[in-house]
């Protein structure tokens, strides 16, 4: 018989290396006289899209389009170290480094432009839609490229190097006090499953996922990262199992170490909450690992809701589910 159930999982997660470990990201920036800019950073884009995030951060700050920004990343010959793509830290930590570097290069441009426009303070200068000019006076502006060109002819170079260090203090081992992580990410997911009581097979019908991302710098990427996290979480809940025999891995191939296929992944509805993280670039924080954390609990709870058995070791294989159902049946018979 096929039975359906619904489960909820919640997660909170400290992002970054944490516990006082130096968590430093860096970036070099140059604004060019063709109205473009380059960002160099050691952060590795492993497909999650960090390069796009840095282009968007730089473009936002310079009043340009993200396609005007060229991001060079993860070339150890030329890019400054930005730590690992791990710990859900690249949007927040390296994003902050990129923003600091862009602001530093931009401040030189503002100084130069204020003199050009005979503006008493750089506060009166704005960069918008590819132009640089006096705030509130559209007649006094010029293309950003032209201003940078002028600056270059006067010997100015709009380059910068910055780094950003995350807040983190070690936990006091005596008192348990401290601030090991900053910031924290939060998320909640619901899963609907169908359990076949004869075969123990679990089919996940739907997952709804809601995550607090501070600010979604790229909403499409946020959705995709949630979907990827859910798919991985489903594998964690139902399939992935490293089989060891005397220390050797018995299933060292993707034909035997199984992850979900497209057919195993249900419709995923992704939502995000934008509660600005004040220390993050434009209010953003990371999402990478948090996206997969609530899935396991949601699925295991849904199995419990469907057939009334509690699976306490992962993955929840059909064998374990059938065994648990048999044990439950025996216990009921005794009563």
């Amino acid at each position, binding site marked *: *018989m096929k039975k359906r159930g619904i489960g909820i999982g919640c997660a909170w997660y400290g992002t970054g290396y944490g516990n006082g470990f130096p968590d430093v990201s860096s970036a070099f920036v140059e604004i060019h006289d063709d109205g473009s800019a380059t960002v160099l950073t050691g952060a590795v884009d492993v497909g999650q899209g960090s390069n796009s995030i840095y282009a968007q951060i730089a473009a936002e700050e310079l009043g340009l389009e993200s396609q005007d920004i060229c991001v060079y990343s993860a070339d150890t010959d030329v890019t400054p170290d930005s730590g690992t793509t791990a710990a859900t830290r690249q949007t927040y930590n390296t994003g902050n480094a990129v923003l600091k570097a862009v602001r530093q290069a931009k401040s030189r441009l503002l100084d130069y432009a204020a003199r050009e426009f005979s503006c008493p303070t750089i506060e009166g200068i704005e960069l918008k839609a590819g132009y640089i000019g006096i705030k509130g006076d559209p007649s006094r502006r010029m293309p950003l490229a032209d201003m940078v060109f002028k600056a270059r002819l006067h010997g100015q170079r709009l380059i910068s190097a910055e780094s950003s260090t995350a807040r983190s203090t070690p936990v006091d081992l005596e008192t348990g006090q401290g601030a090991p992580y900053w910031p924290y990410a939060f998320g909640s997911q619901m899963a609907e499953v169908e359990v*076949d*009581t*004869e*075969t*123990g*097979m679990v*089919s996940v019908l739907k997952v709804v996922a809601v995550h607090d991302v501070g600010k979604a710098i790229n909403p499409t990427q946020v959705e995709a990262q949630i979907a990827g996290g859910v798919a991985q979480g489903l594998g964690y809940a139902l*399939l992935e199992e490293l089989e060891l025999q005397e220390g050797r891995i018995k299933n060292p191939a993707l*034909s035997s170490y*199984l992850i*979900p*296929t*497209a*057919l*195993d992944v249900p419709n995923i509805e992704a939502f995000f909450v934008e509660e600005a993280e004040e220390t993050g670039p434009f209010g953003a924080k990371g999402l990478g690992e948090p996206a997969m954390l609530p899935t396991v609990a949601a699925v295991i709870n849904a199995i419990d809701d469907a057939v009334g058995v509690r699976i306490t070791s992962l993955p929840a294989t*059909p*064998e374990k589910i*059938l065994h648990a159902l*048999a044990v439950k049946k025996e216990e009921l018979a005794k009563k």
Partner: protein
Amino acid sequence: MNYFQPQTVGQAVNIAQTFEATFLAGGTDLVLHMQTGKIHPNAIIDLGKISELKEIKETDGYLEIGSMATFAELGQSELVFQKALALWLACQTMGSPQIRNQATLGGNLGNCSPAADGLPPLLALGAEVRLISREGDEVVSLETLLSRTPLLSQGTLIREFRIPLKGLQSGFAKLGRRKALAIARLSVAIAIELEDNRVGKVRVALGAVGKRAYLSEILARELSDQELNEVWIEKGIEGVQRVVREALGARASAPYKREAVSGVFREALGTFIPEGGTKV
């Protein structure tokens, strides 16, 4: 290593004999075995250019399927859907779209994995296999062929499958660990003569419970010539569990498979009998 690409069956058989060569069908098993060093062929005969081996057609009382017909071609064939539903169903879930585009029914038999998805439906439907070698043609029932060791003598080519069109209703279900790219842990194919609510002859074939797929004589005996009703379905489930229990003995997978086969049997019935798939 020599590589041949003959245009005719006759050429293929001659080359096979002369060079002690291995036939290459879709290659989804053979190439992997070569890569892992499990086999080292003297020569390879690629059958991909022999067009007659790809034919799927109906001729006087038989559905004839060339050994080089791919799972994708079979799974998209209206003829197979109409005449051999169990096989058509097996072709929907085998491997992945990429593998189904490449893998052939003949290769499925040639490799003869315990979990081969194509074999239980062919067994249930009473398929015959036409073999050809330098000695000549031989038509043998798949059931008989699967009892031979080795399956095929050197130089023997699987030419086609012949499914007698006796108006059997058939269905198939398999249990894998996931919904695609899953090796069958259990598969059940059922073919029955059905008139109104009366079941005539019944053939049940099982995959992944022995070294090769096989037909269960016990189930044929116990389930044939009866009324189709809930009692019959439960009798079938009880029977198939007993058969799997006896076949697997003390194997590690036995406790699970002998339970789970009930759901697979029920699902296989449900693919062609509306009331078969639901537990009342």
